[in-house]
């Protein structure tokens, strides 16, 4: 009986590790191996000797698009993310009020969460192309005489706007979910206390809701920044290489030019940027996570 009980508790003690091991092993292999392989690809030539030729190509070759890609990736992020945060804040405040059809509005606002970047790009293409919805609508209303061209290399600034619209439309839902969850967690008592002291709407927003939303906004900001460096499908669909982005260049070097070393270098750069951003994120919110773990 005693040995039986000990055996049982021994299994119990190692069971969690046994349950986690396969998943962890799989992840470590499928991330660790490609990263190692990626470093090899990026820094060796065909004979396996160390080389910086891929780095030189990436940084200095006239056929490399690295600097424009970095610039456009950052520019897209700089324009898209602030709009998303503002819009998501607005949606969240709107849905914190009680009104008829609130649940319906919530479901509608989160629909884009499940729509892919490729589909999001195509949807906006159907709205903005020369025969698209908006051009036809504005022509019928007499606002414009001929279609506004959004697509093609000579219309790059318009392509940029199209990408911004599509990304704001599609990925704001993600920011919204984070901020809305944060808003739900603010206790009613704080707000009621403020009301007792005669605080108006703006005072409540300024001194209670915004400060308490700060962690959620920071989370949303960092996650969106992380995703910004992976932007790919929507750009490929709406602009191709007219607006180069990091992931797009990695794809192009890999599948069109067969520069595996250069493509691997792009992959490593995206990974490195993300790890730095992720590190900041974990550092800032570690305490919060551990609380959730205990939950």
């Amino acid at each position: 009986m005693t040995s039986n009980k000990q055996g049982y508790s021994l299994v119990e003690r190692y069971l969690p590790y046994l349950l986690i091991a396969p998943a962890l092993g799989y992840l470590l292999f499928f991330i660790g191996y490609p990263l190692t392989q990626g470093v090899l690809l990026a820094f060796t030539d065909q004979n396996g000797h160390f080389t910086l030729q891929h780095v030189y190509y990436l940084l200095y070759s006239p056929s490399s698009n690295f600097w424009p890609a970095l610039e456009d990736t950052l520019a897209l992020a700089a324009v898209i993310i602030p709009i998303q945060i503002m819009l998501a804040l607005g949606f969240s405040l709107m849905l914190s009020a009680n009104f008829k059809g609130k649940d319906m509005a919530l479901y509608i606002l989160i629909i884009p969460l499940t729509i892919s970047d490729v589909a999001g790009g195509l949807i906006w293409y159907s709205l903005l192309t020369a025969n698209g919805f908006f051009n036809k609508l504005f022509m019928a209303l007499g606002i414009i005489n001929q279609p506004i061209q959004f697509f093609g290399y000579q219309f790059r600034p318009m392509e940029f706007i199209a990408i911004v619209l599509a990304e704001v439309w599609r990925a704001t839902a993600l920011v919204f979910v984070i901020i809305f969850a944060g808003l739900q967690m603010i206790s009613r008592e704080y707000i009621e206390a403020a009301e007792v002291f005669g605080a108006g709407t703006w005072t409540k927003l300024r001194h209670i809701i915004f400060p308490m939303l700060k962690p959620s906004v920071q989370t949303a900001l960092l996650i969106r920044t992380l995703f910004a460096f992976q932007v790919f499908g929507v750009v490929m669909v709406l602009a191709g290489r007219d607006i180069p982005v990091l992931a797009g260049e990695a794809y192009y070097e890999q599948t069109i030019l067969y520069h595996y070393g250069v493509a691997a270098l792009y992959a490593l750069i995206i990974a490195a940027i993300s790890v730095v951003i992720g590190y900041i994120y974990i550092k800032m919110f570690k305490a919060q996570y551990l609380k959730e773990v205990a939950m």
Partner: protein
Amino acid sequence: MSTPGETPPIRYYLLRIVFAGIVILSCTWVLLPIIISILYAFSSPQDFYSPKEIIPLHYTLSNIQKLLALGAARATMNSIIVAVMTVIFSFALGLPAGYAFARFAFKGKDSLKLLIIGLRMFPMLVIAIPLVTLYIKLGLNDTLLGVALAHTTMALPFVILITSSIFVSVPIELEEAGYVFGLDRKQTFLRITLPLALPGLTAAAIFTFIMSWNEVFMAAVLTLTNRTLPAFILTSAMAAPDIIKFAASFIMILPALIFVFIARRYLVSMWGITVR
């Protein structure tokens, strides 16, 4: 707010009207692009190319049929196969880990969970490029299994965290009752925990399916002939006429719309978990 008996000031009604307007505008902002793109996907070419028909009046299935004949039928099938494999693999690996995080106290738990959270934020698309070299050696290049294995890497941290939070939400008292009545851990899990967690797990499975269905970068890098739907759209359908592209976007968003409808109750909390 006005108290009963008191006539609300006109400003109150004005505010309500403005508020309703904002709500309607927000919902229109999300819904209009979807509705328009679906209408255009079924528009007759004449209506689409006529500058006067803002909303098409004649509808046809020919855009969808042409798209499917171009190779989208096979690509759609491939996407479904890859997504189903991804769900099976990531649940086979992730569900036990999720259960362990939810129901055991063990040394190193916090660090392991933090590691999973960290890995979830890793940009998985970058593994695709070096994976090609490995896949060529293993004969996995341009195979659906290869794509599914890569998608499993992407989905696994999410599956662990989501299933863990689902198991946490199953009342532990019910499991304890199972132990009291002489069930062992395995029986308790199969007869009590799993059935109670099933709705949440189903939603999580659909979520994983959509994640794989939507993924384009890895699929495009790892396949050449066996394209999944998004990879097919990116490499082939972009050269097709516009209305064929709209048909492609319709097929892409269809499972997503069904998912929102079925799992809407779980959607906010699930995304809450995945992005926290």
